[in-house]
Each structure stands twice: as structure tokens, then as C-alpha cells.
């Protein structure tokens, strides 16, 4: 679809928000918590913060929650009854305040859940998500979206992208038919406006590496001291994966209470020692170095090999949240 541009006045944003809430939508938007901004279920417009580069957590939680019920069961001596969660109704969610990198992340994420197996629950959720993104006017030393085919004003993945203009009003780029529908339903809030000075409003994010070159290099770097060197300080936690908007590994867990229970899909991380532990006791990825290598190879070699795009959107969350200050750029630029 051809992108259509509109102008939305600053006060209309709140009206749009309230209309969406009034229309029964669940809205996830950045909310301040201490020094952090977190995507949270927001009911009041004033709870939304604008003071963030990216949120600490990622937007993937609306399609790939950290705990997803797959089914519940009830055993008796004769039979076992199963209630499939795929049949339940999922909420209509509006993601408000995603950054272009957040929106871009939905593309590889959706790919993952639509490989050999089409994940019904994921797709049900994904269909009900509407992304209202906001371009970046600020960036920091962790950002590298421009190195992974994205950018501070990139539109891919979003339904609508707002860019704050110098006067305080917003440029609204409507990217998808879903976005168009929203505009038509709220036509009083959107004024026709041609694209102007968007680029000037955007943050400057320097290109840090060439993704294609990296992909090529990684072909031959499986055995290399860089992995141990760069991961030495790794504490083996899962924060990088859990804040990553693309990471999609999960673990299947049953929670049993007597003869009732549920099967759950829970986030998992390749940073954990348990991740690849075999029943035999053997662990093919025995050290953090091997785990770090997997993380980098997965995002910059395996995913691009398969899907043509990187499994990374350059949001920099993993580096920001790492308690040991392991910076993914450090590794990528030193290969």
C-alpha cells in the first residue's frame, strides 16, 4: 500500500487515545517506572511518558507473552479433558509509542511463528495488534538501527508512524490498510498534510557495521577466541533475550495441581546454562562463550540465511540491560 500522510494536532493524540480506550481496546504504552519506561497496560493518557529512547522491555509481550497458556487439562481415571487455549478470545491491543525498531521487530518475530508450523495463538494475537509508532528524535550510544536495515523514521511493521514536528504537532504516516481504517474512523482528528521536514526531526544514528559483511564473516568464525573474550563477564542471566524484541525462544512447562493443570509456553534464553542441557548431563554449549556465539550467530547468520533479514533491529536493549555491560556492538564491530 502506498503510504499516506496526514497531520495530527497534539491535543488530538489524547482524543485518539481515549477513543481507542472507549472502543474497548487494550492499550500498551510506555509508562515511567523510576528511571525506566516500560510498555504497560495503560488506561489513562497522562500515564504515558514521552521521555524514553526505547522502553526497557520490548513490545513482543503483546503477541508472545512471557507466559502463554496453551491448554488446560483435567484428568480422571477414565479420560483426560483438554481445553485448548487457541479457542479463547484474545484482546484487541493497540501498541502505542513503539519505536520504528520495535515495529520492525514484528517482522522476524512473526516469521518465526510461521515457519513449518503456523502458531495459531501467536497469529490470533498478532492479527489483533495495531501498532502506533513514534519516530525517534533522540538516540544514544547503544542504538544501531541504521546498521540493520532500519532507522529512526523507518515505517516497516507499524500501522501508523507519528513523527513529532517542530511545531509540536505530528506527522502521521499511514502505512497499512488497518492504519487507513483507523484514520477513516477518526477522520476528524487527521488533517491532510504532505510529507515535510520529517528527516530533520529524526535522530542521527550512525551506521556501525555492514550487516552483509558480518553475515559473510560469521560463516567462518565458529571457532574463534572472540566469543570467550567478549562474554567473559557474562553472568549467565537471560535479560538480553528477555528484553530483545526479536528473541522468541520458549520452554514448555506443565503446571499440575492434583489432576488438573495447564501447559504453558514460557520465555527461555540461550544465555541460560540449562537451555541446551541434555538429560545425559552433556551440554553442547557448555560455557557462556558458546552461548554468546549462539546468540550472535542466530541473529546475524542463521536468521538472515533463512529469512533474508537479520534477527536484530538495533534497538540496543540487550546492551543497556546487561548487568555486566556486555555490549553487542563491541562484539559485532570487533569481528
Amino acid at each position, binding site marked *: 500500500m502506498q503510504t499516506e500522510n496526514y497531520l495530527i494536532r497534539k491535543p488530538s493524540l489524547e482524543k485518539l487515545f481515549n477513543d481507542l480506550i472507549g472502543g474497548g481496546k487494550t492499550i500498551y504504552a510506555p509508562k515511567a517506572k523510576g528511571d525506566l519506561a516500560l510498555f504497560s497496560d495503560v488506561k489513562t493518557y497522562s500515564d504515558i511518558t514521552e521521555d524514553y529512547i526505547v522502553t526497557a522491555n520490548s513490545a513482543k509481550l503483546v503477541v508472545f507473552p512471557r507466559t502463554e497458556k496453551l491448554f488446560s487439562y483435567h484428568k480422571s481415571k477414565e479420560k483426560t479433558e483438554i481445553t485448548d487455549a487457541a479457542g479463547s478470545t484474545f484482546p484487541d491491543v493497540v501498541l502505542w509509542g513503539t519505536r520504528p525498531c520495535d515495529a520492525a521487530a514484528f517482522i522476524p518475530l512473526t516469521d518465526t511463528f510461521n515457519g513449518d508450523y503456523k502458531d495459531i495463538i501467536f497469529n490470533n494475537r498478532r492479527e489483533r495488534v495495531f501498532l502506533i509508532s513514534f519516530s525517534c528524535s533522540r538516540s544514544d550510544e547503544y542504538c544501531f538501527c541504521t546498521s540493520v536495515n532500519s532507522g529512526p523514521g523507518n515505517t516497516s511493521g507499524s500501522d501508523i508512524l507519528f513523527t513529532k514536528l517542530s511545531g509540536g504537532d505530528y506527522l502521521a504516516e499511514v502505512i497499512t490498510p488497518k492504519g487507513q481504517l483507523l484514520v477513516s474512523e477518526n477522520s476528524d482528528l487527521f488533517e491532510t498534510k504532505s510529507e515535510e521536514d520529517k528527516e530533520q526531526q529524526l535522530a542521527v544514528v550512525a551506521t556501525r557495521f555492514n550487516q552483509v559483511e558480518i553475515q559473510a564473516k560469521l560463516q567462518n568464525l565458529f571457532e574463534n577466541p572472540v566469543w570467550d573474550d567478549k562474554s567473559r563477564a557474562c553472568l549467565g542471566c537471560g535479560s538480553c533475550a528477555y528484553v530483545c524484541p526479536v528473541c522468541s525462544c520458549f520452554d514448555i512447562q506443565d503446571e499440575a*495441581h492434583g489432576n488438573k493443570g495447564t501447559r504453558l509456553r514460557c520465555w527461555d534464553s540461550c544465555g541460560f546454562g540449562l537451555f541446551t542441557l541434555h538429560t545425559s548431563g552433556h551440554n553442547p554449549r557448555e560455557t557462556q562463550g558458546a552461548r554468546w556465539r549462539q546468540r550472535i550467530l542466530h541473529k546475524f547468520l542463521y536468521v538472515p540465511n533463512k529469512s533474508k533479514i537479520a534477527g536484530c533491529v538495533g534497538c540496543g536493549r540487550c546492551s543497556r540491560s546487561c548487568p555486566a555491560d556486555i555490549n553487542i556492538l563491541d562484539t559485532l564491530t570487533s569481528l
Partner: protein
Amino acid sequence: MSKIGVFICHCGENISATVDVARVAEAAGQLEGVAFSTDYKYMCSDPGQTMIKQAIKENGLNGVVVGSCSPRMHEPTFRKACQEAGLNPFMCEMANLREHCSWVHDKSEATTQKAIDLVRTLVEKVKLNKPLFSIQVPVTKTALVIGGGIAGIQASLDIASAGHQVILVEKDPSIGGHMSQLSETFPTLDCSQCILTPRMVEVAQHPNIKLMTYAELEKLEGSIGNFKATIRKKAKSIDEDLCNGCGTCTTKCPTKKIPSEFNTGLGMRTAIYVPFPQAVPNKPVIDKENCSYYQKGKCKVCEKVCPTGAIRFDQEDELVELEVGAVVIATGFDIMQPSGFPEYGYGKYKDVITGLQFERLASASGPTLGEIRRPSDGKIPEKIVFVACAGSRDPAKGVPYCSKICCMYTAKHAMLYQHKVHHGKSYIFYMDIRAAGKNYEEFVRRAIVEDEVNYIRGRVSKVYEENGKLIVKGVDTLLSAKPVEIEADMVVLASAAVANPGAEALAQKMHVSYDSYNFFSEAHPKLKPVETNTAGIFLAGACQAPKDIPETVSQASGAASKVIILFSKDELSRDPLIAVVNRSPAPVFSTCVGCFMCASACPYQAIGEELITNRQGKVIKKVAKVNPGLCQGCGTCVAFCRSKSIDIQGYSNEQMCAEVIALLNHE
């Protein structure tokens, strides 16, 4: 796949009167993994047990839950039945439907539902039970008896006469204990020494008894059947093999003014001494604290006069390690020094003495050769006041318990006094007269009626000296209900019987429990009065609580028979409900990280270290290891272990969790 059999007992009507047993059996049958479920009138009866055995065989059951009485009652019965049917006995669990359900609730739906819940809980547990095998422990058939008073003597003689080896350890230079200090004994007034000394000699001569006097327990490790005791033999400074007990040294020793312990300070002894003439062994020791040579570096008179050259000034304490299979504690008691009661003036006035001191005054072998003479001036007291409960039954300053023997010995003292000083007057201040025992009450009556002892029911508030008399202020709560004052020549305090000063330390060395007064605790106040909570350690005599001689002797024989029962088999079988440290596949080997917090928490020092090595013998990991011989299965370590690397068989983490989940989740 679990194939559990559930057997619900009616217990006559004990259970079925309030619990719908048929419904319990039916509900149990609906549980996943239950292959057989039934109810029966008496499960523990022969037909009941046969029913279980048959069901095991016919249905190939691999687990059994019996819903009946308390497992403390019949767990061994049903486990044995299962074993006889070829099922590992530890695959049988009991749901307590009687004591914990039918007997404590009225008949109702809720009661039946509770019974179902209890059965379901145990079914879920038994699914996770694993076959366990009893631990066989060889028995060292030597007993260690600690304390050479009448209790220790009796226990030693009994065990030795049954043909087992006995090591009798006594901390003093002679055996005999308190009984050897007594004059006559109630209620027969037979001479204490006359009945005791033959037993003492018998101990010395018994081929199966090894006597270690002047020795104390240093350390006790191990467990029932296999203890390792370390005994400290204090240096006697003589060569016992050479000494012939002639006594020349004790007569020639120049240091003669040492208060004699045996005579409770009323007589003197020398630095090299035999505590009393009938001592066993009748060989002296040197009291280093008071010996001129040890203190000042010169003297050695004993060495000069000894005809056999047996004096050894350079002798040092010796530590001896012994393997024993059972221990009898017979360390006796002590009397409370009444100095905590300044109102009685003990220590301030020479003629205020304790009951034990009176025993020595009344004893024919005592410092006054049996004449009642007061310590201050040797005069025969005309008026004597006995204070009963001088420390006993006094929660404020003394001990709250009754010392049990004082009523009787005080009556005896007054009686002995009246027999020896016919014109004398004796008074006894008392709270109650406790004379329960064969011929005891009659004895007290005799003191009152025949010997005209004045019993005054009331307490003494003060004793003070005025004009050479001891003024005893007290109250007579019965007749006059008024304060009374007696001008006495002597006051005898029936001071409380208390635990030995070293009792607490000894209990801790042996890991036996003790009460708040430091008396050792029996395993059960009624049914296990001579056992301690530590298997293989038994109690005899007043170390458990104040006791008189006949009671002490009976308990000593009881303890001896427990030891003999233990020694009647070559091997002991122990429940395998013990802790184990887990093993996991390489390269982890065990999830234990070797913090050893479990080891510091273990009450039995049962947790040691194990080094895990690779094929080249290099140590990869140091982990905890439970010694199955020492572990008693309390499971304290299990609850401690942060990584859940240690678990206890029979009460495993999985089992307990399954029980919790099953108990709280029903349809």
C-alpha cells in the same frame, strides 16, 4: 506405572462408626494408579493381613496404603505383611484414619471426606516411594558404663554376668558413689557400706569388667552397636601394677589438712590418698592441686617411703580409644550447695550443715565415728532442726521439682539422732511428707510416734546466731498458724538433689537430650524410661532424676537388660530412612556445591566430605557425603540444602510435595 492397593480398616467400629469406610474405599478406587481398593473389619487381624497379601499377589500391586490406625501403632505389622507377600516393606504407607480422624470427629460427611483426603494423600506419596533396604550394622558386644555408683555397679555386674564385656568408667579414685557415703539406709536402717562394699569388690574381681577409675569420657562418636569412646585416664601419679596398697604413703604424706571430699569437708585427708578405707581399687592417687611436690617442687616423701617404687610423678593423662556397642549413663547426681540461701546461714555458721554431711556424722566410718557431734565445738547437740525442701520445690531460688529422697532421709536423720541422743529434741520443718514407697510411710510414722520427732509444717525464714545458739525462725502453718522460733544447736538442711555439674557437657558429648535441670531425658516418660532418644545409650539411676537406692538399682538392671537384648544379636537392622546426597550425570556429578552448611546443621556429625575425581584421579569436586551409620534421619540437612542436593529416603522432597499437593487438591 503405579498399581496401588488401598485397604480401609473398620477397626471394629472405631473407624466405621464415624467414617463411611465403604465410600472411602470406593473413592480411593477412583484415584489414578489405584488398582485395588477394599475395606474390611479388622485389617490388622490374620484374615485382614492375608487379604493384603493376596491382593498384592493377585493384582501385582507395587504399593500399598492401609487406612487404619496410627502408623506408630501398626506400621511394622503391615510392612511385614507386605514383605511376606514379596513387596518391599517400604512400599507400604498408612493413612491415620483412627487417631487423626474417626476418634476426633463426629460422624459426618466432612469426616468421611477428610478420610478420603488422607488416603489420597498417602496414595500420592506411595506412588513416589522407592524400595528401601534395612541397613545391617554389626554389634560390638562391649558396654561402656559411665559412673561407678550403685547404678553403674549394678548395671556393670548384670551385663558382665550375662557374658558381655563391660568397661566401667568412674571419675573419682574409687567406685562407690554417694551410697558409700551414707550411714544407714531407709526404711530398714541397714548399713549402707555393709551392703555396698561386697558389690564393689565383685566389680573389681569380675573377669568381664574392666574398671577405669579416675577417668572420664572425653568423646563419643558413632552410633548404636558401634560407638567409639575416648576415655581420659587422669594421671594418678602411681604405677597401679606396682602399688600393693600398703598405705605407707598416705600415712607419711606431710600435707594432711585437705578437706576430705568423702567426708564432705568434715574430715581431712592427705595429698596422696585413698578416699576411704573400703575404696575399690584400694590404691592411692596423688591430688596434684594439693601436693607439695607438684605445687612447690619438693617433698617426694611418698616416693621415698614406697616399698615397691610405684610413685610416678611424671605420669600424664592418657587418652584411650574404645570400641563399644552400648553405653549406660549412670553418673548420678549432686547436692545443691545451700550457699544460695544466706537466710539459712550455711557457710556462715559451722553448725548449719547439709543432709549429706549429717550422713557422714552419723556414719560409723565418719569423722566422729558415728557420734552426732556438732562441727563447731564437737559438742553433742541437744536440739537439732532439720529443714526439708532446702532448695527443692522452690522455683524462686532453688529448683521447682521435688528431690524425692529428702523426706525419707530427713526422717531417717531425725530417727538416727534420737537413737543416738536419747534426751535430744529434733524438729523437722517440712512442706509435705512424701513417703510413697514400700514401708516408707510406716517408717515416717515410726519417727513421729516412736522417736518423737517434732514435725512442723512450715518453712524456715531465717537462721541466725545469738548467744551461741542458732535461732531458727519459721512458721507453723498447722497448729498455731504463728511464727515459731527454735533455739537450736545444729541445723541440717535437706538440700536439693541436682544434676551433676558436668551433666550438660556430657549430654552434649553423647548427643542425648537433657531437661532444663540438666537431668538426662528418657526416650518416653512411661514406656521407655531407661532408653535415651539416642539409640544404644541407656540411663540408670539419679542422672535421670532424683531416685532412692531401690529405684536406682531396678533401673540399672533395666538398663543392663536393654544392653543384653541389644547384644543378643550379631547384627542390628536399622531403618534406611536416612539422608543421601544426590548424584547427577557428568560433568556435574552431584548438584551439591560443597558449602557444607548441612554438615554444621547435622546433630550427628553424620555429614562428611567426598572428593569426586576424574579418571586421572584429579579432584574435580568436593561434595557432602552422608555416613549411613551415623545418620538418624531427622532431615534437618534436607530442609537446609538450598540446591536440594540432599534428600531423605522415605520423606523425600518429591514425596512431601506430592502429599501437599494431594492433600489440598480434591475434586
